[in-house]
């Protein structure tokens, strides 16, 4: 049976209302991004490991802004490390062992899995179309906060804090 025109109109109206309600009910309100500081990511760091700060945990899944210095690999297009202080990126190193802990070591083509986990950086995954900044540039990133202890599959960089779908602003 063919539906009558007025019935089609009614169905379309109901669908549109449902879609609007759905959008309103299930999407997050457009909260402003909350400023997060790298030195305050963890409430404690001891020989037993680092513990996320309360604010860090509360912001999981939300929009945050983080300011720091880029440590990037020119061969990797959509992700980089944001560090508290300017770092040297040691791409040719095949082991981390010969470098101070305050230097972030990245292995762009590394086979090694033993990358030190930095507690004074976040790992940034850029939104589509964003360009990776050069190492040493001071930048502010805005994106969704994730808290995982994970090793990035491409850079092999191990991080405890990630910011995804990120946009960035170069400060200096």
């Amino acid at each position: 049976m063919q539906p009558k025109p007025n019935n089609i109109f009614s169905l379309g109206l109901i669908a549109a209302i449902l879609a609007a309600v759905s959008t309103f009910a299930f999407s997050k309100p457009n909260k402003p991004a909350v400023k997060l500081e790298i030195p305050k990511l963890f409430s404690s760091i001891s020989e037993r490991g680092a513990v996320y700060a309360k604010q860090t945990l509360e912001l999981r899944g939300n929009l945050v802004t983080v300011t720091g210095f880029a440590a990037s690999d020119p061969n990797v297009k959509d992700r980089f490390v944001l560090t508290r202080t300017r770092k040297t990126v040691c791409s040719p190193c095949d082991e981390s062992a010969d470098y101070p802990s305050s230097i972030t070591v990245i292995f762009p083509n590394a086979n090694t899995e033993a990358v030190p986990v930095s507690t004074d950086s976040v790992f940034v995954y850029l939104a589509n179309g964003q360009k990776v900044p050069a190492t040493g540039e001071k930048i502010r990133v805005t994106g969704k906060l994730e808290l995982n202890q994970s090793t990035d599959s491409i850079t092999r960089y191990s991080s405890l804090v990630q910011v995804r779908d990120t946009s960035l602003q170069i400060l200096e």
Partner: protein
Amino acid sequence: MSQESRFQIAIDHQPRATCLTLADKALTKAFQTDHVKTNFKNWYPLVLLPIAATVVSALGAPSEADINVYPYDGAKLLAGQRVDLRVEASKLEDLKNYTISLNGKALTDFVQTSQGAGQAEWTLRNISAKSGANEVLVKLTDAKGEVTKRIAWTGVAPTRPLKPAKNVILFIADGMSWNTMHGAQVIAKGYNPSNGMPRGKLEMEAGADGMASISTSSFDSYIVDSANSATSIATGQKAEVNALNVYRDNSPDTLDNPRAEIITEILKRSRGASVGIVSNVFGTDATPAAFASHTRRRGDYSSIADQYFKGNVKPDVLMFGGSEDFIPSTAGGSRRKDATDWITESQKMGYTFVNNRTDLLKAGAPDKLFGLFNLDNFPSYLDRATWKRPEMLGAFTDMPYLWDMTNTAISSLEKNDKGFFLMVEAGMVDKYLHPMDWTRAMFDVLELDKTVKLAKEWAAKRDDTLIIVTADHGHSLSVFGGYDTSKGAGNRDAAQVYEKAGFPNYFEKLDQNGIPLPTAARGLAVGFGAHPDYCETYVGREVYQAPTVSDGKGGFVPNPKVCSEPGAFQRIGNLPKDQSQGVHTADPVPLFAFGPGAKLFQGSMDQTEIFFAIANAMGLNATQTK
């Protein structure tokens, strides 16, 4: 030529022409009687050629297989020192049979494997060499014929010194060249400005009973890293870059390589001595790892952590900086991929655990002691003792000094009447020489020097302890002048030479530990022989800065933050542009020794000789098991 083939030892199989030559020589010798000699030239072709042809026919064509044997040809082993024998054959065509013998006796019970077509390997673990000459003979036959290979080892006989060293304390300043050590001495002691005489020596050299200049090299490179250089000291063997106490093999598994027994393993096995390992870097770093673990890849951090507690050594005392390989993967900052928690597990094994200086100083002398005082490497001595900047210390504000750890380690270890071996590493010397932060590096040498002083004072009461202070490799640091700090940082005209250099006067102001403060009216002017482009100011900075940053194209440029400091000037580098830091050098390094056996260290020595000299000083008999 590939790197692999470059290091293959020549194979003993002989092509036909060579067989003829050999047959010719044998026959010539056989016919060398007066009578035959007289007429030999006349009937030589008639007799010799048919006989030679018969010999060649009997031998058959030689196999074209390549054979590698480890321990390598020319290895020097302590008699009784356990090693894994590995024979690897490639280019085989249908292997028929083989025999592998040591000193004329056929060896059995090999584990045979194959890494691919035409390849075969045989591994036999825990064999040992006898005193004197040893020969490994490998004979293989494949479809093409036979091939043989002979390998010679030298077994060093145990000695019985009149006064053997019961204990050994080995101090290693990672990366400390002669120049770095001397620069630290100038900071610590300075000169008498009225006559130019040095005001004293470092404790690590003062009153030494033996001293040597140590040359370093490794199996695959004459520039060593901290892993294979420590292997030279710990086993007397040359190993590949990044390898710890293992020989090369052709399998991808980095943990199955043929092993060489470590001096700490021998001491545990042969006399039940105690072992301690102390370092201010992360606990699985190469130098500490070399005294209790085996791996082809120093980056096998989790395995190294496990080997501390499960391996042959099981050190009685372990105290380190970084904990990241001893805590479960769920802990923030852990590098492990499993739930192993060595802090908890070690306490079940009877270890007392400490995590800060306050508790360490109260620890007394536990039988077993495990200390972790940071998540990663310690910051430098200056960061901990003088500058105390939160950017450098982070959450770790109660870290012990190297002498605190060493004193407590000795207190625990000395209870064993069978003696002990303690390795103490000042690991951050190297960590800061790489980025050319010579101020931090030299003051870490001074932290070590105070530690050596206390150890010497302890040993002076007993006369049974050999103390050795050495480095594993050098960096290209050189002190070339004096710096007039009144003219501000980075003033090139303030870096004066010869008589205008003045006499550095750091020693006039000491910190709470009796070590000079890093500020002096007349400081050092220091440079490096091998470095990337970077900016120098001649004065230290309280918050560490990397010397270079990436240029975004695979190279490195001077860190603009350093270059923007007042007076900073750029030094044009001489390393390839993809190098971000300074590098290890081939330069010899110092060694000073004190106590029984110290005189065994003299002149110019290869780094592997340190192992044998320690064994001789202790009268170590590796052929026995307690």
